[in-house]
């Protein structure tokens, strides 16, 4: 009986810890399903009529390629039309058309166009012998039935999801407060500060900007809070950096969303962003500090910065592109050279993990832009040759990977020391963990326990389940990006979002699989979780690409502005209303979506 009571308290704590992954899973999964629920249906936004034959072409996207090629969004099977003839795009000012290097040129209302030409309803566009007239879409198409509704027909309210995410953090922080038996309130301080920042962003986004969706931010907040609470229990002093970085990261996130609102502005700045990235790399190489084998730090007084983390953002900016530019400038040489420079710098700094991340991101962008498997194969074989050369010149790099797959034969030397510790402590944690601040991985002083090996720490203290849910949250960014890919306002956002989602998942693979001996260990961070201010900042910045890819991000802004002006402008046609009996999410969500059709 005495033994029974002895084990009662630990068992209760265990049950409490088991709640954490359940709640976290709820937040992660419902964020995604709610995100999907709030999306516009794939109805045509305007129509193009060919008056002579009576053919009607629905315009489905914000950017539409027109041409003879089957891969075009609007395919005109006429010999006089070029393969990729023109692009019809929705911009802030209205619908515009521009020629993409066609043989016969493009005419609007009979006049040859140069550059972008603003259109209004009723205008005719002539390409070769085909003339299309722009018309409003009449009636919504039949509602498509989804077989799988994500366990729930309704979208969850952002408030509820944020509250659940905060509860996850509080439950984790509570364990940290009781880690040494007695209650220590200060342990919860970093969690509470992160919470203030998360809710601050919520108020700004929903209350001031009137955005209708907050799912991506909720997931990012959930992950950041988990990371900060975990690290606070490991090193309460060091977590300050993490908090400051999260704050700057959120500011960067908001700034970038504003910045990307105007695509002209983005294309004007692209060249400067690219140049700044290269300069920063050069500066890093010149005045950088070496830290554990990689010269990837710049120290400016009390500040220390890992430039490569911020350059990730610039890299996506340089790589992605709007559809008109994609159709006119088909080769990726320029971007290839830029990648070569970036990866070259990283190899010189001996930061191979980050170099691999840049390269993976490049492959995704290159494929999405060119679609050419041959080009990718060529680049890959070139890269393989490059890796071969690097290994020939720097043989000690290969030695670092010698322990891969044999870590248990190297328990006490540096080929397997870190990985075996991670595996041992991960297994110790079981599915629900030993509790925040109770881990042996942190306490045993294994090098990089809070950064490269943080997944082991997460699993030991919070359990394998929460570890897997964190991974799932990061993997789901791919689905966020994919579901926006044809709905976003431009291929610029589509490619950017996919590149970011792929980059983060690749980085996660390197971190998690490196620490657990599925892959060789490379020193990269786990997004949102690992200690590292630059990493935290950059990952929030990268979130902006995912957020900007969601058309609602900007739709709500305009709706809000218009309301402030007192209703819709006179030139706007009346919005299309969904049919009666149609289940719709709470306003203003659906109405905001309509403004693409105006």
């Amino acid at each position: 009986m005495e033994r029974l009571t002895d084990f009662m308290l630990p068992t209760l704590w265990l049950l409490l810890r088991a709640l954490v992954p359940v709640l976290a899973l709820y937040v992660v999964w419902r964020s995604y399903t709610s995100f999907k629920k709030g999306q516009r249906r794939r109805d045509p936004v305007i129509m193009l009529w060919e008056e002579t034959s009576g053919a009607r072409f629905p315009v489905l996207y914000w950017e539409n390629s027109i041409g003879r090629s089957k891969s075009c969004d609007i395919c005109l099977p006429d010999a006089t039309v070029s393969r990729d003839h023109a692009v019809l795009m929705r911009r802030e000012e209205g619908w515009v058309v521009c020629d993409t290097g066609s043989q016969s040129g493009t005419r609007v209302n009979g006049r040859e166009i140069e550059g972008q030409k603003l259109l209004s309803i009723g205008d005719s566009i002539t390409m070769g012998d085909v003339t299309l007239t722009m018309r409003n879409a009449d009636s919504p198409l039949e509602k498509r039935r989804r077989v799988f509704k994500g366990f729930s027909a309704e979208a969850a309210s952002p408030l509820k999801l944020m509250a659940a995410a905060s509860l996850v953090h509080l439950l984790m922080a509570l364990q940290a407060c009781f880690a040494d038996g007695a209650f220590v309130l200060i342990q919860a301080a970093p969690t509470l500060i992160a919470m203030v920042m998360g809710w601050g962003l919520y108020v700004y986004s929903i209350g001031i900007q009137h955005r209708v969706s907050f799912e991506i931010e909720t997931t990012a907040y959930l992950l950041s809070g988990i990371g900060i609470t975990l690290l606070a229990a490991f090193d309460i002093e060091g977590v300050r950096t993490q908090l400051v970085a999260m704050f700057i990261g959120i500011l960067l996130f908001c700034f970038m969303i504003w910045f990307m609102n105007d695509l002209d502005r983005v294309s004007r700045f692209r060249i400067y962003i690219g140049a700044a990235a290269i300069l920063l790399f050069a500066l890093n190489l010149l005045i950088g500090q070496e830290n554990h084998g990689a010269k990837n730090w710049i120290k400016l007084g009390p500040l220390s910065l890992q430039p490569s983390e911020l350059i990730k953002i610039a890299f996506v900016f340089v790589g992605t592109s709007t559809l008109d530019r994609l159709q006119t400038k088909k080769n990726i040489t320029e971007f290839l050279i830029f990648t070569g420079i970036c990866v070259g710098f990283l190899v010189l700094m001996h930061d191979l993990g980050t170099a691999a991340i840049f390269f993976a991101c490049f492959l995704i962008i290159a494929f999405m832009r060119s679609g050419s498997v041959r080009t990718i194969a060529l680049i890959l074989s070139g890269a393989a040759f490059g890796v071969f050369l690097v290994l020939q010149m720097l043989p000690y790099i290969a030695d670092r990977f010698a322990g891969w797959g044999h870590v248990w034969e190297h328990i006490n030397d540096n080929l397997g020391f870190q990985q075996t510790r991670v595996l041992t402590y991960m297994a110790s944690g079981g599915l629900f963990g030993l509790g925040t601040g109770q881990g042996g991985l942190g306490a045993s002083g294994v090098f990089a326990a809070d950064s490269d090996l943080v997944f082991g720490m997460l699993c030991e203290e919070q359990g394998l389940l929460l570890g897997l849910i964190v991974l799932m949250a990061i993997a789901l960014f791919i689905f966020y990006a994919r579901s926006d890919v044809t709905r976003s306002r431009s291929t610029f956002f589509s490619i950017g979002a996919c590149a970011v989602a792929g980059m983060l998942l690749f980085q996660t693979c390197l971190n998690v699989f490196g620490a657990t001996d599925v892959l060789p260990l490379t020193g990269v961070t786990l997004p949102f979780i690992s200690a590292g201010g630059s990493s935290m900042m950059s990952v929030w910045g990268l979130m902006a690409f995912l957020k900007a890819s969601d058309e609602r991000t900007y739709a709500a802004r305009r709706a809000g502005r218009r309301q402030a002006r007192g209703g819709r402008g006179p030139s706007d046609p009346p919005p299309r209303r969904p049919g009666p009996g149609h289940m719709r999410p709470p306003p203003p969500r659906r109405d905001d979506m309509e403004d693409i059709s105006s």
Partner: protein
Amino acid sequence: MKTVGFRSIVLYILLAVFLGGVGLMVARQLLYGRQWAMQPYNMNLTGQMGDIKDRNGNILARSEDGERLYSDDGTVRLALLHTIGDTAGYIGTGVQSVMGDRLTGYNFVTGLNETILTGLTSGLDLTVDQYACTAAYSAMGGHDGAAILYNYETGDILCKVSAPTFDPAFVPEDIETNGAYKGAYLDNTLSGTFTPGSIFKVVTAAAAMEAWPDSWSTRTYDCWGSENIGGSDITCLNGEAHGTLDMYGAMGHSCNIYFAHLANDLGSEALQKKAEELGFNANLQFGDVTVAKSSIDLSGANANQLGWAAVGQYTVLANPYHMMALMGAVAQGGTCKEPPRLTAGGDALSKVIKPGRMMSPDTAANLKSLLRSDVENYYGDWLFPQGMNVCAKTGTGEVGEGIAPNCWMVGFCDSAQYPYAFAVVVEEGSGGIETAGVVVSAMLQALA
């Protein structure tokens, strides 16, 4: 945009790689998590293990406030170190290492968390008797070696002692540098092998019994203390001439020349074959622990080498655990019926050593009478507690110049009341009876 959208499926390649990696990671943890968690450096292990008790309920190890504590009796700590294991986990064959998962209540779901369930199940009752162990340890008189004894009816190991040893409660600071602790992490009963000397004559005798079932007992050879066989001399202990001997006399006097001739008449193949049937060159399993192999290799041995091998010299090596099990088989008519075990249940240290028959019941009965005759007519029953009816063979394995021999005694009690089989080896001793015999005597006294 359609095309760009379509191309985004390239992300699914990455996703597939990711899912594959996660699957592999989780599957590995499911399969090997137990071993991973039981690493000695794991800081979560210490102080989480349940109580370990001996067969009479004496606490051998327990946890208090996150610390691992051992018996209050210093001699018990020294004698049972290798059976229980040390806190740091260097003794890989100890219960705390081999059954660490059971002692901590580890499982895939709750990991090393303490729960109501682990609180109730993490204790472990061993079959050993702490008094028999301390008696054996003390009788070894500070020498290195091994002593192991089990009940061949039930399989319970009652005594298991290995030396050199150290105190797990106060680990010596110079353990890595001091020569006295060399090999202290090794359990000699399971992981040690020693030159067997004359105890190997039991094997040679068994081979002869099966080669000549009708005539082995009447076969005689002459001994003059020393004889040139195969180009060099085979000598008896102290050059003593035993005259004309049959098997009983040869076993009693432990005559080397008799067995050297016997082996040469048998041939190396027959001796090799019988030794392997008796468990030499076999990988014995003691639960999850692989026992060090007793070994013999007579290929290419000349007549002299075969002669020396027949008396347990040459390159022959024997493991104490194996010798004990072999004696258990002789006691039970040729089969080791209940394999030795350290715990009562179906645990990691209670599995079968090697199934099957080692020798015919006739051979077993003949060996039993030979070994009984040794004690009755040569060593003296007064050595052992009354009524134990001990059957045994001593041995002095010569290990090289200037070093005193390994002194052995292996045997069993042919008694329903005391069904014990044992093997004792003491390094650098003075003689089989004088050095190993007293250890056997001490163990049996403690169990009487």
